[in-house]
Structures are given as structure tokens and as C-alpha cells.
């Protein structure tokens, strides 16, 4: 893992050349993938990689390459391309640190650090003046919840004398409700679970396409990953609060999907769909069984690729038409027929249709939640139905319908955009057999 972190640091030398940067990222991803052959649980010098952190690190390298390829307009418009690339690579380094480290405090530090690049991306390259308040929301929601986490981590450190994952759950078992909320709140907001989610649609709407891609693709997963890591410390109180958290997750997920379907902004629709998907992650973590955990990892990875792909599609349309309104974007099938295929593929992947690993994750999580309480099948079913509904709504209202007066001079996807979408979709489909093989 350290070599990848160092490799990322070396990339800072190539700020001026985007082509070299993307090539290097793919090289990193390639080496990372090859490294899987000799792959077990590596624990070397406080750098730990297990299956979950391996996949999430891989995902962050991949999404970063996609995000740079998707924002060549930054380079063309000369809006500080070096700073942009620097922020992206800086974020990658700290993401790798946070997924790779075996120390909870180090994870916390890297977790906080990734806020600064995303904050600057939203504020610096966003679209409307409202990006100021959006970036404030982004920073202060997450900070307000995660500063108490520092207190919680230090509390555990004081009691256990170690924060290494190697000793995870082997020290004192805490049943203190204050510690429970200190440890969990940051991740609930970061995930975000419904009630702590208000910053997310705002940030997504104002963020540039690259910011949305990395935010939905990787940064939200920091929350899920962190939760899985801290749960062994607080298992005793978890059983006490599990009913509450399950209710928040299920009801919140359904509410988020209902809100999702009445959005008029494509981007905020996709953003709310992330809130609905992340509710499932919380569900898996709270159930705390091996099937639940497999579902958490599968959902996180597949949602990362899928929502990042959807955001890049929305970004493409926004670059061409200057709007993201569902009312104005219509009948794209007549104007950009090739992109319609991508819209279709990503929409059905987001609703967990068969070839996507989303389905796998949902099956894992539905099994475990219905096993927890039969009545939850109603809410879980609602979640699944609404996912189908809002994705169909997104697809149909953008691709079909009468001609929009706005879109008489729009080109189809360029080669670069096709490549980006392909590189989202291909690993996504290929992951289905890999993930189903790995976790069961």
C-alpha cells in the first residue's frame, strides 16, 4: 500500500500534463490489480489491506482517473488546471492512506483531510454563487459530526492503549451510549444517513462534475468503511440502539427515494438516490452479520461506480445544454442516440437490475434485514420499488418525449466520454462474478 501512496505523491510532479497523469493513474490501477494475485490480509508496518480496503482503494484510483478524464474542460478553459489536478491527486493520496492504514486515528486524520480538497473543488470549480453556501454546508456538517469522533477515538485510545485494527474488538468492550454516538455520528453524517443528509444534495448540485463523481464515488464510502471499522468497539451498545438505527435507515431510505422522484434537477435526483442506497449500507452495518457485511462492501463498490457514471452522464449533458433540469432535457434519443444506451445501462444498474453487482448487494442486505424482522420486508420492498421508479423516471424523462427547444445543436458523446462511460461500466459488470465469488 505504501508504494501506491508514494506513487501518488510522485504524481504531483506531473501537474502540467493531464495525459501523463491519467496514464499514471491507469498504471497504478493496473499494478494494484496485479497485486491481487498474492493477496490475503497483509499487515505490514501499520499498513493493512483487507478485502474491503483493497476494493475501496482500487475504486478511488479508478474514480480519480475517470474524474480527470471527465473534466478536460477545466484544462481547455484554463481555469487553474494545475491546482485542479493537484487537489485531485492530493485527495487520492489521502484516500489511499485512509483505506490503507491500520490505525484508527490515522484513518481519522486522512478522513478529515479529504474534506479540504473536496471543499476547494466545490468552491473553486462549482457553477453558481450558491456554491459558497454549499461548500460551507459540506465542510461544517461533516466537521461538526466528526470532531466529536476525535474525542471518541481518543477515549478508546486511552482505555485500550492501542487503535490498531489488529487488536480490533479485543480490548475493552464499551457499553457507554455517549461513546457510541461519539464514534458513530461522524460516519452517519458522512454516509449520509437520512436526517444528516442535507449537505449532500446541495454539494452535488453546486459541485463540478469531477467533484460529484469523487464525492458520490468514494468519499461517501469513507463513512461506510469507517463504520465497519468502529463497530467492533461499540458492539455492546449497538445491540441496544440497533432497532433505532434500523428504523432510521429503512424509513429514511424510503423517504429519500420518495423525495428523489420529485426532483427536477437531474443531479440532485442522482444525489438523493445515493442517500437511498447508503441507507442500505447502514442497514448492513447495523445487522452486523457476515452476509450483511458482504452486502455493505458490494453495495459500496457498485454504487461507487454506478453513481459516478450517472454523474458523468449528467455532467456531459450539462456541458452541452447548460441545464440539468428534467423539464428541459428531453428527447435525447433523437439528438444523442449513442448516449441513450449509456443512460439506459446506468439507470438499470442503479435500480439493481440483473447484470449489476448492485443486485448482489441488495440481495445480501434484503436477506439479512428480513431475517432480522419479517416486517422490514415491506420497507425494503418499498426501497427496491422506488429505486426502480426514480431510475425509470430519470431515463424516460430525459431520453423520450417531445423535442426540447433547447437542444437543436447538440453533439453526441465524444470518444473520450465514451471511454469514460465504458470504463465505468466494464469493471462494474465484471465485478458481478468477482464479488459473488469472494464473499460467499
Amino acid at each position, binding site marked *: 500500500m*505504501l508504494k501506491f*501512496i508514494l506513487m501518488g505523491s510522485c504524481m504531483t510532479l506531473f501537474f502540467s500534463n493531464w495525459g501523463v497523469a491519467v496514464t499514471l493513474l491507469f498504471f497504478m490501477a493496473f499494478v494494484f490489480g496485479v497485486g491481487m494475485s498474492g493477496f490475503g490480509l497483509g499487515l505490514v*508496518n*501499520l*499498513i493493512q489491506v483487507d478485502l474491503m480496503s483493497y476494493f475501496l482503494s482500487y475504486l478511488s484510483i479508478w474514480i480519480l482517473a475517470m474524474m480527470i478524464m471527465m473534466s478536460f474542460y477545466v484544462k481547455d478553459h484554463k481555469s*487553474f488546471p494545475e*491546482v485542479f489536478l493537484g487537489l485531485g491527486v492530493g485527495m487520492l493520496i*489521502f484516500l489511499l*492512506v485512509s483505506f490503507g*492504514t491500520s*490505525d484508527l*486515528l*490515522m484513518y*481519522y*486524520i*486522512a478522513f*478529515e*483531510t479529504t474534506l*479540504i480538497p473536496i471543499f*476547494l473543488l466545490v*468552491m*473553486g470549480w462549482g457553477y453558481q454563487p450558491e456554491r*459558497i453556501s454549499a461548500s*460551507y454546508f459540506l*465542510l*461544517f456538517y461533516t*466537521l*461538526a459530526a466528526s*470532531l*466529536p469522533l*476525535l*474525542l471518541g477515538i*481518543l*477515549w478508546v*485510545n*486511552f482505555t485500550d492503549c492501542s487503535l490498531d485494527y489488529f487488536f480490533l474488538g479485543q480490548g475493552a468492550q464499551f457499553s457507554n451510549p455517549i461513546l457510541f454516538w461519539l464514534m458513530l455520528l461522524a460516519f452517519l453524517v458522512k454516509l449520509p444517513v437520512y436526517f444528516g443528509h442535507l449537505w449532500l444534495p446541495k454539494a452535488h448540485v453546486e459541485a463540478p462534475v469531477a467533484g460529484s463523481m469523487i464525492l458520490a464515488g468514494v468519499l461517501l464510502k469513507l463513512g461506510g468503511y469507517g463504520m465497519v471499522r468502529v463497530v467492533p468497539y461499540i458492539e455492546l451498545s449497538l445491540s441496544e440502539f440497533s432497532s433505532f438505527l434500523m428504523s432510521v435507515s429503512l424509513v429514511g431510505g424510503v423517504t429519500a427515494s420518495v423525495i428523489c422522484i420529485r426532483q427536477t434537477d437531474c443531479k440532485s435526483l442522482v444525489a438523493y438516490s445515493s442517500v437511498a442506497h447508503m441507507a442500505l449500507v447502514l442497514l448492513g452495518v447495523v445487522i452486523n452479520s457476515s452476509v450483511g457485511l458482504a452486502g455493505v462492501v458490494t453495495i459500496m463498490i457498485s454504487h461507487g461506480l454506478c453513481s459516478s457514471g450517472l454523474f458523468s452522464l449528467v455532467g456531459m449533458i450539462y456541458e452541452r445544454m447548460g441545464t440539468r433540469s428534467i423539464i428541459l432535457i428531453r428527447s435525447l434519443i433523437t439528438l444523442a442516440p449513442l448516449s441513450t444506451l449509456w443512460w439506459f445501462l446506468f439507470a438499470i444498474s442503479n435500480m439493481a437490475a440483473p447484470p449489476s453487482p448492485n443486485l448482489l448487494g441488495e440481495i445480501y442486505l434484503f436477506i439479512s434485514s428480513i431475517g432480522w424482522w419479517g416486517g422490514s420486508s415491506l420497507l425494503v420492498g418499498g426501497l427496491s420499488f422506488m429505486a426502480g421508479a426514480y431510475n425509470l423516471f430519470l431515463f424516460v424523462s430525459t431520453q423520450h418525449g417531445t423535442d426540447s427547444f433547447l437542444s437543436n445543436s447538440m453533439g453526441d458523446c465524444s470518444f473520450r466520454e465514451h471511454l469514460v462511460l465504458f470504463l465505468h461500466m466494464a469493471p462494474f459488470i465484471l465485478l458481478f462474478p468477482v464479488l459473488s465469488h469472494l464473499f460467499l
Partner: protein
Amino acid sequence: MWLSPSLLLMIISIVTSICLVISSPSLFISWIGLELNTLAFLPLLLSKKSKLASEASIKYFLTQTLASVLILVGGLWFLAPWGGLATLTLLLGLSIKLGAAPFHSWVLSIAEASGWVPLFALLTIQKINPLLMLWMFCHLSMPFFYVVVLSSLIMGGLAGLTQTSVRSILTFSSINHVGWLMTALSFSLSVGAYYFLIYLTTLLCSILIFHMFNVSHINQLPLLSFKPSNQMLLFFALLSLGGLPPFLGFLPKWMILQLTVSYSLLLVGGVMISMSLVVLFFYLRLMFSAFMMGGVNLTTLSSDPLPFPVYFVALFSITGGGLSMIYFL
């Protein structure tokens, strides 16, 4: 003007007074050090010729004298039958000297009137003496000490929100830092010294930048055509001062929070955490006005490259935390 013989004398006197307080075996000698310090700092305040500055120096003189009297009386009361009041009086005097929260008003009016270098000295070097005496005589177990710490933390955070002058913002942030410093000192001298040194470095970085661009009000910031690299520098310097994790400013805060948790001072820890969020908020407001220069482009205001020492200090203040993080990798 800077190294005129008289000013050099004053600077040497300040250093001497610090040495005196550090090494004195008795409270009386320490008190002499404090007095010497007050007298030597006055000409520094007056180095900027304005009515406001002379008013500020008078205010400084009066408050410091009051504080000195309290410290002297407190010291003498150690021998009196009502000796229990001695540490309380001493703490009162020292809190006035430090500019800790219920007694902080004088710092603001002086900060507004002084130049950047005297302000830096006021916020850092002038605090060494009272902090040392505080370490010797007072502790967090005293209820009044507790009150001063909490009110410094809260006042420094909340009252800073109302300010638009850069000097006032830095002053309120320093009031907040005094709360942290007092807590640190009641744990141990080395933690306090560590916190103080890092606070000095991070403050130096941002004050140097404000000094170079001569910014004293928040709405001057958008008019400066900063280069993006300088903007980043100021942004990171302020985040470091606010104590966000990857930067140097986070390290001492982490240490102190660990200690507060170990001593189960959860109230102080919680107030520290929530107030550092508020402090970060007003630093960021400062930053937003510097970032939003896109619309305004006054080429008449030059954006000279910053001198080398600024980059050096900034580099240390920003990457110091990252370097120490390598320890964990």
C-alpha cells in the same frame, strides 16, 4: 526604523524580562520581570504614530498596572491569614495579563490600534510571562481557573463571529487559544510549551502574509489580486491555525484532547471541540473573501511574490503536521 537603538533596547528588555520570569526563584522577582515587560512593550505600541496608538498604550499601561498590583497583592497574601485568597487574586491578575476571556476587552482595543509586528508580540511573546506564572501557581482544579478556561474558549469562539477586522479576528482566536493553553499548562509545562511554540509558528505564518499585503479589514481581501499559490498559502495557514487535521496546528490540539480525555475532563474537551468548529468558521469567512477575487481584477495593486521567509514559515506551518504523520505510516 525597525532597528533604531531605542527599539532594540526595548526588545532586549522584553527578552530579559522573560529570562527573569523563567529563572526567578521568588514571586517578587517574577513580578519585577512582569513590570519590566510592560514598560518595554509600551514604546513598541507607540512605534506607530497615531492618536489611537497613544490611547491604546495608555489603556495597556493602566490594565497592566492593575494586573501587576493584583499579582503583587496576591503574592503578599500568601503570608497573610486569609492566604486562601492569594492564589485567586494571583489568578485574577494573571488572567488580566493574558487577556483571558472575562478580562479580554483591553486586548481588542490595543490590537486594533497596533501594527502587525506589535500585535504578533502582544498575542504571543507577551503571554509567556503570565503563562509561566500561571503554571507555577494555578491549576485546573481551581473553580475560577475552570471558569476562565471555559469562558475563554467560548468567548474566543463566539465573539469572533461578529468581527470583520482581521486584527480582531486574530485576537479573538488568540483568546480561544489562551483557553487551550491554560488547559495544557495545567497538565504539564512541556505540553503547554509545545502548544505555545506551534501556536506561535502558525500565527506567524498568517500574520506575515497579512503584514506583506497590508490587509487589516476583511473587505480588503478581495481587492488584492493574490496569485492562486498565495491564496492556497493563506488558506492552509489559516486552517493550520484553526487546527484542522493534516496541518501542524492539529498536533498540539490532539495532544491536549488526549489529555483531557485521560483526565476525564469531558466538558472542557467538548467545549474545545465545538468551539474550534466556530473558530474555523470565521477563519473560513476570512478566506472566502480572499478567494472571491475572480470578479475584481485591479492590476494596479501589485501582487509581488512573497519574500522567502514567508514561504519557509508557511511550509513549516503547513507540512509540519504531515511530516509528523509519517510516523504513523
